[in-house]
C-alpha cells in the first residue's frame, strides 16, 4: 500500500515537471535538482503581458538596470514603473499597434499597475540584497551586466517572459558564497561571500 503511494507521488512529481518543460537547459537538465533538493528549473509563468526580454536586452542591447533601477541601490531590483515603459514607447510609433504594446497603453490609460506574477520569489524569511551583488560584481569588478545578473537569473536576454533557471535555494547560494571572488577589476585580492546566518535571515 505504502509503496503504491510512493510510486504515485514520484510519478506526479516528474510529470509535473515534464509538462512545464522548455527546450533550454540552463541550470541543469529538466527535472534535475540541486544538492539541497530544489528544482534547478522553475515552471513557466503566464504573465499579463508576454514581455519580450530578448527584444530589449539582446536586440536593443539595453542594460538590465535601465529598467530594473532598484538593483543598484536597493534590496529589490524592482519591476519598472509603468511611466518608464511609456516614456520610451510613446515615441516608438512603429510598434504602437502591436497587441502587447496596446495592452500596455490600456493599463497606462487606466493608471493601473500591471499585475505581474513574481518569478523569483524567495521565502519570506530570506532577504536578498541586490545592491550588494550589483555593486560588487558589476561596478567594482566591471563584469558585463548580462553576466552579473545572469549568475542568478540565467540568460534572460534570450528569453521572452522570464523563467527561473537557477535553484535560488540556500545550498545554491552558499555554493557561490564559498568561492573566492576578486575584490575589483584592479584589486587581485579575493574574498568570499558572508556565511553568517543573519546576513540573509532577518
Amino acid at each position, binding site marked *: 500500500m505504502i509503496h503504491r503511494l510512493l510510486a504515485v507521488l514520484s510519478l506526479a512529481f516528474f510529470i509535473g515537471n515534464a509538462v512545464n518543460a522548455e527546450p533550454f537547459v540552463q541550470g541543469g537538465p529538466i527535472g534535475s535538482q540541486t544538492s539541497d533538493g530544489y528544482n534547478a528549473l522553475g515552471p513557466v509563468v503566464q504573465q499579463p503581458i508576454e514581455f519580450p526580454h530578448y527584444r530589449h536586452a539582446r536586440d536593443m542591447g539595453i542594460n538590465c538596470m535601465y529598467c530594473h533601477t532598484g538593483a543598484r541601490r536597493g534590496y529589490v531590483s524592482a519591476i519598472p514603473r509603468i511611466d518608464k515603459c511609456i516614456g520610451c514607447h510613446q515615441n516608438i510609433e512603429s510598434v504602437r499597434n502591436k497587441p502587447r504594446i496596446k495592452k500596455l497603453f490600456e493599463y497606462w490609460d487606466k493608471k*493601473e499597475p500591471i499585475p*505581474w506574477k513574481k518569478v523569483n520569489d524567495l521565502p519570506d524569511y530570506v532577504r536578498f540584497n541586490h545592491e550588494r551583488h550589483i555593486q560588487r560584481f558589476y561596478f567594482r569588478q566591471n563584469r558585463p551586466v548580462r553576466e552579473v545578473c545572469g549568475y542568478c537569473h540565467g540568460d534572460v536576454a534570450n528569453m521572452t517572459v522570464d523563467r527561473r533557471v537557477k535553484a535560488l535555494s540556500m545550498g545554491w547560494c552558499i555554493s557561490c558564497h564559498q568561492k573566492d571572488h576578486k575584490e575589483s577589476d584592479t584589486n587581485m585580492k579575493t574574498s568570499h561571500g558572508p556565511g553568517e546566518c543573519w546576513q540573509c535571515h532577518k
Partner: protein
Amino acid sequence: MSESGINRRDFLKVLGLGGSSLALTGCGNTDIRSGDELIMPNVHPEDFVVPGLSVFYASTCTQCGSACGVMGRVREGRVLKMEGNPESKISGGKICGLGQAAVQVQYNPDRLTQPMMKVGGSLQPVGWDKAMALLEEKTGPRSGINGEEFAFMTGAMSGHLKVLVQNYLDSLGSKNHFVYEALSPAVSFAANKQVYGVDMPRLHFDKAKLIVSFGSDFLGTGASPVHFAAEYAKFRKAPRGTLIQIEPKMTMTGANADRWIPIIPGTEGVFALGVANQLLKHEEFAQSVPSDIVSLVAKYDPETVSSITGVRSELVGHLAALLWEKSPSLVISGASVEGHTHGVQNAVAIQLLNKILGNVGKTLDGQAQSPFPQIAPNAGSFAALKSVNDGMGGGKFKAIFIYGANPVFTAPSFMGLRDNLRKVPFKVAFVNAVDETAEECDLVLPIYTAVEDFGSHVAWYQPEGVEITMQQPLMEKLYSDTRSMGDIMLDLVKQRRADEYKAWPDFFTYLKTAVINIKPAVKYADTDEHFWYDTLSHGVIQVDAPQQQIGSNFSAAMLDLPVTAEAQDPKFPFYLVPSERHYFRDGRHANCGWLQESPDPLTTIVWDSWAEIHPKTAESMGIKEGDYLEVSSQNGTLKVKAYLFPGIHPDAISIPLGQGHESLGRFAKGVGVNPFKILNPVFEKSTGELAMYGTRVSVKKTGESEIVVKDEGPVSTQMGRKLVVTLPADVAQLSKEI
C-alpha cells in the same frame, strides 16, 4: 504495523521523499516559488521612490495628548514603523511604546471598515450615502433640532479639527461641546490656576538638583512622558540629580527614584505641609510665606504627620534637610495626589514647598503664551461627562455625537451612563474600531486612523515656545469605505453654512488655508505654497511666543488639610489605587497586541489584569500569587488575580486601568477587569472632578487560583545564583545618603 497499515518508519519515509512538495501547503511562503504571488509595479510614483527603500514622512502621534512630532517609515506605500521627529521640541526625535503601536491601530484586524447602522438591535453595514442621509434627517436643517437638544462629546482636542467642531456647534446654535478625558489633568490645572495663575507651569528638570515627586509618574504617563524622559536623562547626568518619589503604589517613575516612600493615599498634602513646617522653622525660609501660613503649618508637626500619612516621623525632617541642602529643587504633584476629595489642597500644599524653597522662577516658570486661542488645547475633564450624563438622563438631548471618547467603558457604574445614553434617540459614534460606546450607538461611522489623515495639534505642555505639530497621511487609506473626520465635519458644517465654507471642498484644503494663515506669526519669508510644504515636510511649526508670567499666590485657606487621620470604614479597609499604565492609559489602546504583549514594567505581567497587594498584607490574609480575589467597593466587585508586590502601601490595593473591555475587538475583549466600574461617587470638592483614588474596597479570597502570566523569573532567589547583590535597606543605611 499499526491498524491503518502505515507504521512509523514508513511514515517518515514518505515525509522524507515528499517533504519538499508537502512544504508548499505549510503556512507562509517557506519555499522558492514562481508565479504564485503578484508583484505590482508603481504606475507613476514620485521621483524619489525606490522600491525596497523607505521614505520618512513627518507627522504627529495622536496616541495620547502629548502631540509628539513623529516620522513614519513608509515603504511601497505602507507605513511600517514610527520614529520620533528630531525637529519636534516635544518628542526631541524620540518616541514611546504607545506611539510605536500607532501602526497596530492602522492594521488592526478589528478595524471598522464601513458605516454601520443599528437595525433591530444590532449594527448592520450600510453605505455612506445612507449613513449621511440619516445624519441629515436627524440633525440637518430640516430636522428641527435646536442647539440645546444636541450634544457633541469628544476626547481632548486641539488644532483645526477642534475649530471645525466648534463651528459646527455654532452653526447649530449649540454650546454643548463636552470634552471628556477619563484621566484628565483638570484638578492639577485648577490647583496651578489658583497658585500660579496658569494651567500648567513649565518644569525645568535639568536645572534642579533634587526632584521630589508626589505621585507624579512623569516618565510613564501624564503631560508629556517622552519629553520628560529626555529631561530626566539630563537631570541624571553628572552631577547626578536626586529623585525622591512619595506615592501609595510604585509607578515607573517611583521605580527609578533614589528613594521611594510609600504613603497612605490622599495624605501627601499633609506630608508636604509637615515638610514645610520644618523648613519654615529655619530662618532662611521663615520670611518666604505670609505669617498666617507659617502659623497654619505649625500644627503639622512630625508626629501628627506620621500618624496621618503612615510615614515614619523622622523622614519629614530628613526630606526637609535634603531640600535645604540640594537647591535648587523641584517639587511636583501627580494624579494619585490629585484624585481625592481635597485634591486641589493636596496639590497646593505640595506647590507651597516650591514657594518656600524659592524654586518659582528657577526650576519652574511659565509656558509660552499661544497666540492662537482657537486651536489651543482643551484637555478635558470629568465634569463634562457628568453634565452630559445628567443631560442624557433628563432626556435633554435628541442627538449626540461621540468622537475620541469611550464613556461607556470609562464611566463608573454608579453613573448609569449606558442606560442614560440609551435614552438619547439618535447617537452617532466616529471610531476606528467598534468600542463599548459605539455598540450603543445608532450610527457608527468609520474614520481614518491618525496615519491616514491630515490634522494639526497643539499640546497642553509646551517645553519651548509654542509648537504646532502637523499631521499628514503616511499612507493612502487602507479601506475605501472609511472617511476623514475632518471631511465629515466639513460636510456637517456645510449643512447650514454652505456659502461660508464653499471655498473648501475637503478638510485638506481647509487645513491648508488655515495653516497658511499662521504664516505671519512665524515670519516666514517665502510664498504661501512653500510655507505649506515646508510645514508638512518638517512636521512642526515653531511659534516664538512670549512667556506667560506666573504668580505665586498662596493663602492659608487654600491649604487647610485635615489634621486627623481619615475615618476608616471597617467594611472597606483597603484604599483602591487604580493605576494608570503607561501604554494603556484609559484603555483606548487595549486592542493593540503589542501593548498587551508588552510586560508591565514593574510586575512583568502580560495580557491580563491583576491586583497588587503588599506581601505582608497577603501573608496575614493567607493570599498567594495567583489567588483570585474579590475586590469590592460599594459599587461593584471585580474578580482578579493577586500579585504580591512590595512596592505598594500595605493598606492599599492596586488594579491597573485599561483592561476589562466588553468590545473593541479580539485583543481587548474579555481580557482582565475594568476598575473604572467599581469607583465610588467621591468627588474633588472644589472642581467636582471624580476622585479616582478615593474609593475604599474590601478584599476577599475566593479560593480559586491560576498562574499569573509574567516575564519575571524568581526575583528573590535570582535563579539560585547571586546575579545582583542586594542589601536590606537598614543594612545599606540609605537614610544616611538619601
